């Protein structure tokens, strides 16, 4: 049962009495194997094996106590486990790589709304008139429009400062080495990966690189604390159908959420081999393959819970996971195109609601988002509607406990 269903699922099956699952699996998989073996002249052995299976199931010999004991110990990814469970342990956007930020932003951080307001109304009298008329500096459209809600009502006088660095996380999403325009993508500059790989696409990073966000939303300390304390980060992966932990041309990756806390060590890092219950069924099921221990999933559109500084849910188009499996977890890239409109909703909500948490100015940012968009070209307008993106993810191995409801056919 363990070999066929995987350790957790088999435990649930036996504990919850899901005999139907076992019978169905027997019909689909075990019976052909038995027939084959019987044909090879090993009838007695097969009958004994089958009898033991039936007795085990029907007599509930595998109670919860022995089920735990009987579970396969998954020591490494090359073992014969059918499933590999993972829980998100950390992620990184690599927003600021150099100590002073001069490499990425030689001219300094993005101009704020106030700087643009000062430039837009150059005299003290003009500013006073604007305030008297419109109430605050964010309502500086021609008819006092709020620049976050109607960002195209004016053009900011100061330019938007985007990242100038050459290195970013990511993979080659458009298939070109130079970022030239294609049928579905817009021209853009490429990055090198931290490993020196060429052709990396990450316009999302280019947009955010000069925001003064390393002090708040994107800081590593905040991310780590968030991973530890906030349930929005509790993302589980289950890689199913793994016949070979190194090379397997067909696996399924199910993405779940969980409401359980993770176990952390003395420095707050997630500890592998924790047990977490899935919250309901999988949010997504992705097809993928393992190539020399690297899990690569096929592109799929997913909605991913916001992860930093009040970010809302992100629509990631053509999302793909490139995760290198290790004995205790997995590490790699989540790449894909982030929908511009969706991103602006999240971004402007934060800006408008809290007075500019990222420190940028609405019209310039709105314009830059559209200008930097490099994927999912609208065939009608020829404009791109999404930004290439990538984040580095770290997962640790985990035991996923599926709810009985999910296991019910």
């Amino acid at each position, binding site marked *: 049962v363990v070999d066929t269903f995987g350790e957790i699922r088999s435990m649930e099956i036996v504990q919850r009495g899901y005999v139907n699952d076992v019978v169905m699996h027997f019909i689909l998989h075990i019976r052909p194997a038995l027939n084959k073996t019987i044909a090879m002249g090993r009838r007695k052995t097969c009958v004994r094996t089958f009898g033991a299976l039936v007795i085990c199931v029907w007599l509930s010999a595998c109670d919860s106590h022995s089920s735990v004991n009987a579970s396969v110990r998954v020591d490494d990814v090359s073992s014969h486990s059918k499933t590999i469970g993972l829980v998100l342990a950390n992620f990184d956007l690599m927003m600021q790589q150099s100590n002073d930020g001069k490499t990425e932003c030689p001219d300094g951080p993005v101009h704020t709304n106030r700087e643009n307001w000062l430039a837009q109304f150059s005299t003290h009298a003009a500013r006073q008139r604007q305030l008297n008329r419109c109430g605050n500096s964010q309502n500086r459209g021609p008819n006092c429009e709020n620049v976050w809600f109607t960002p195209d009502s004016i053009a900011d006088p100061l330019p938007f400062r985007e990242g100038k660095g050459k290195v970013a996380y990511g993979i080659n999403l458009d298939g070109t080495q130079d970022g030239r325009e294609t049928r579905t993508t817009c021209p853009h500059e490429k990055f090198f990966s931290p490993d020196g790989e060429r052709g990396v696409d990450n316009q999302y990073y280019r947009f955010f690189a000069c925001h003064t966000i390393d002090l708040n939303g994107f800081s590593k300390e905040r991310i780590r604390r968030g991973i530890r304390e906030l349930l929005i980060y509790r993302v589980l992966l289950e890689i199913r159908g793994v016949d070979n932990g190194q090379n397997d041309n067909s696996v399924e990756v199910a993405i779940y959420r969980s409401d359980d806390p993770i*176990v952390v*060590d003395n420095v707050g890092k997630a500890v592998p081999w924790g047990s977490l219950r899935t919250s309901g069924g999988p949010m997504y099921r992705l097809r993928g393959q393992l190539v020399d221990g690297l899990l690569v999933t096929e592109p799929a559109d997913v909605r991913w819970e916001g992860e930093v500084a009040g970010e809302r849910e992100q629509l990631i188009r053509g999302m793909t996971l490139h995760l290198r499996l290790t004995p205790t977890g997995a590490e790699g890239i989540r790449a894909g195109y982030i929908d511009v409109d969706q991103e602006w909703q999240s971004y402007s909500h934060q800006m408008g609601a809290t007075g500019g948490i990222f420190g940028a100015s609405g019209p310039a940012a709105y314009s830059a988002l559209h200008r930097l968009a490099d994927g999912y070209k609208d065939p009608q307008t020829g404009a791109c509607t999404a930004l290439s993106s990538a984040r580095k993810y770290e997962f640790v191995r985990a035991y996923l406990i599926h709810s009985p409801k999910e296991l019910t056919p």
Partner: protein
Amino acid sequence: VKAGTIFWRAAVAGVLSVVAVVVLLILGRERGLYEPGATGGPATVRLISSEQYITTIHEFFGEDIQVDVGFAPPQRLQGLLALGASTAAMTPGMLEQADRTARNVAMQVVDEVHRQTLIPCLPISAREADARCARQFFARVGRLLYRRPLTEAELRMQINAASAVSGQLGDFYAGLGHSLAGMLISPKFLYFTEVIEPDPNHPGHSRLNAYSKASRISLFLWNAPPDEGLLVAAETGELHTRGGLRRQIDRMLTSPRLELGIRAFFSDLLTFDKFDTLSKDPVIYPAFTRAVARSAKEQALRLITDHLLIRRGDYRDLFTTSRTFVDVTLGPLYRKPVPTPQDWASLELDSRHAAGLLTSLGFLALNSHPGVSSPTRRGRAIRELLLCQKVPDPPPNVSFKIFEDPNGHFKAARERLLAHSSDAVCAGCHKLTDPIGLALENFDGAGNLRTEDRGMPIDVSGVLDGRSFTDVAAFGHALRDHPALGPCLASRLYAYGLGRPMTAADRPWLAYIAKRFRVDGYRLRDLLREIASSQAFLAVSNPMLALPTLAANGH
């Protein structure tokens, strides 16, 4: 004298009867069926522990009353804190803490949320003193807190104190709270004071009074003050009768509170108070957090209560079982799933690397250094805590240089200890501890299973008092069959119940109870019943001082 006559038949029958009686007597003595006479020890005065304080408040006033108390543990005597409690004094620091806690608890009891249920009457006016209602309250509460009815003088004192404060503050409940706080820092509450009285059945001898018997039994079995049933049994004199006493003991042995008592005893026996200060080097053992330490303690206690109470297992098998328990915090350390992450799950370990309590995370981590395992500490713990053997302290000028040098030539602990023990001064004691401590070397200083130490394969073979073993499981069996294991537990349990150190006069009774433990198949519940219902357990010697009696009368 003719053969076959009735005379000869009677003679043969008589001889056979005498032989049978003699044989039965011999067998009975051999099997420990006859309880030796016991002179008893002095009545005791035991300082309340933090756990007993919290249990008392929660039992009487409800578990939603916050009790923030953490008295420093008393001195450990004959391996037990419970014995130190009978010689402990109230330090100024402890009194200050008790006073703060008492005021806090009293304030909660009389607050608007709790007064409806905890105060059995309504005052005439909430702004004035009400002696009638105060009397009802203190008569009820005082009986539970002092473990006996209050004398009229005590009752009047509490009512007067409450009335004075109520009058000054214009608040009946404030007065009640003030007076209640006074009761909670009274020695009559903070000390379990045993009182003796003349024994009417044995003129010239003394006995514990019924309330003291109730407290002694209750502390022994529940680690808690007597409940209503025991107090009623004391009031009616039931505890002075053999049948009444047995009924109460049987009731207590089937109560869920028994688990609290067993946990308290084994926590004391195994020095689990050290968990409060247990820490590991976070660089060497990053996964050993405070949460892991808490769970490790709970794991050991769950194993003990599950094996001894729920399964009613043989005490000795506690050191051979491959069963353990894991929660979501410990699951990662065993690399095992926890099917219900909100709860504990039983887990069957690889029997080759399992020796019950000995291989529990708590025992291993507690008896190690912060950054490395310690065969010496582990061996000493087994000798002293489980076999009741004394291992001398190391001499003050001993050098640990060879053992602790991480860059030293000797890699494995066995080699380092061997080199360290080459000093003749050290060798004597290390011969006692190291061979058995090395049996647990497959577990590092945080209790995690390992197969090598600093790159060297680990040799866990050794000899325990003539019984050789090659792995930890065999070591568990060797300890299981050690003749001192059962008697050690019996004697510790007896001393724990009496609350006083054992003396030479107790030896015959200790030998008897050890035999009974063996005859009963090393079942803990039977041992508890034997001890609690024995004459020796409740016996007291004649008083040399009348102090306990004076204290009980409120002087």
